[in-house]
């Protein structure tokens, strides 16, 4: 059964049709990767799904329920979380606190006003675990604003993972990470998928990541799906080669 279904969704900005009549269907437990040239409409699609922008027309259905038109917090509560292409975190809070916000939300502890947050054992426990997974523990007390670019990217991903969603949207998760970090992130994501049965939708320009993660790839161009299929098939596709991959110089 498909968990997420995007039906004939369109969004235009002025004259520019960023996403047009796009259909997409993602099964529970699947890892789907969307690739496409810069400006193809990938981030816009993510915005439409996650409630950041409203579609001009069409529907987004998640777990059998229409979510287009809902506000982001509601969508997140339904189990659909996203990361951002440009790191989007809490600059004046420590790395630990950053992740703790996500965990508080996840554990429904965010409304407690009568008990110190530092005394919520399970919450802090969980935060430590997540930071450990992302190799961020040594930076736990660093104010997020002072992180290097790559570390910010890691924090970005850990914020989404901390929400333990049913489905995860990752917008270029490994951009800016060095190759070790990229590898360990891939590893981590794989683990999440297998362990929790998570469904994953991601975009990436790093083909290594794409091919080592994706069950299925969707190739987008000018706001539309051009082709869709298993990695090998897409890799071989002439359009993809021509428009997207270019010659293999590097």
């Amino acid at each position: 059964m498909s968990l997420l279904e995007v039906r004939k969704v369109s969004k235009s900005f002025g004259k520019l049709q960023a996403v047009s009549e796009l259909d997409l269907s993602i099964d529970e437990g699947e890892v789907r990767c969307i690739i496409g040239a810069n400006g193809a409409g990938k981030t816009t699609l993510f915005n439409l799904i996650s409630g950041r922008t409203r579609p001009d027309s069409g529907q987004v259905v998640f777990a059998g329920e229409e979510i287009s038109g809902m506000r982001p917090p509601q969508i997140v509560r339904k189990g659909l979380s996203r990361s951002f292409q440009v790191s989007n975190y809490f600059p004046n809070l420590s790395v630990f606190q950053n992740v703790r916000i996500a965990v508080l939300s996840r554990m429904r502890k965010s409304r407690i006003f009568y008990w110190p947050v530092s005394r919520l054992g399970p919450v802090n426990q969980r935060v430590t675990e997540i930071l450990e997974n992302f190799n961020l523990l040594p930076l736990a007390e660093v104010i997020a604003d002072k992180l290097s670019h790559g570390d910010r990217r890691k924090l970005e991903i850990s914020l989404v993972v901390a929400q333990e969603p049913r489905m995860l949207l990752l917008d270029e998760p490994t951009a800016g990470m060095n190759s070790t970090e990229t590898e360990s992130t891939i590893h981590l994501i794989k683990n999440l998928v297998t362990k929790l049965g998570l469904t994953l939708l991601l975009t990436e320009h790093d083909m290594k990541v794409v091919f080592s993660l994706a069950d299925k790839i969707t190739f987008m161009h000018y706001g539309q799906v051009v082709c869709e299929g298993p990695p090998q098939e897409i890799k071989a596709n002439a359009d993809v080669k021509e428009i997207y991959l270019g010659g293999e110089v590097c």
Partner: protein
Amino acid sequence: MLILEVANIDTYYGKSHILQDVSLKVNQGQIVALLGRNGAGKTTTMRSIMGLTPARRGVIRFKGEEIQKRKPFEIAHKGIGFVPEDRGIFPDISVLDNLTIAAKNSADGQKRWTLEKIYHYFPVLDRLRDNKGQNLSGGEQQMLTIARTLMTNPDLLLLDEPCEGLAPQIVNQVLFGLIKGLKDKEGVTILLAEQNARFCLGLADWGYLLDKGAIHFNASAADISANQEVQSKYLSL
């Protein structure tokens, strides 16, 4: 000929001591790579050269002139251009304005880059010329950042992670050629930090290895590519 010389600089963010006694040399017309893990200090080195996070100690010479005490805009006028990793697009003005707002001739009065030439490499920017900066996609912004700096006709270009967010086709067919062309045809010197090691080492003549804010190693790009030990120790390739 030596165009940039960084001699024993120490740089701090507030009280944290980031760069420790960093020295490097770049010859005219060379591409020099700064290599290192996340948080190694690559960006900080570039910011120090640009005067954005001035070094507290040490000397930076550009074309033989000390610039470590200069303001960023003065340094820019001397001929250094900076493409930052976080793009720094001006969000409220159009793409065209982003490109032209600070456009200037090179320090010796040459005008190597025009809008036409930019649009030749990045046709998207032409198409989007009236869009506001903040409305571009990630990759489009990256292109704009590179293009915007080129419009200032720098003699030395500091490129911080230029490939991030760009589709492979752009990286391989446009950016690679562009940088090569800058070096070969225009004699522009380039200091490059890039996680995409293949791209980086494919272009560079020389490489410096940074770790924890200090230079640990420097060698020709070919040597580094060949040196497995260095790669696994500092770059984890």
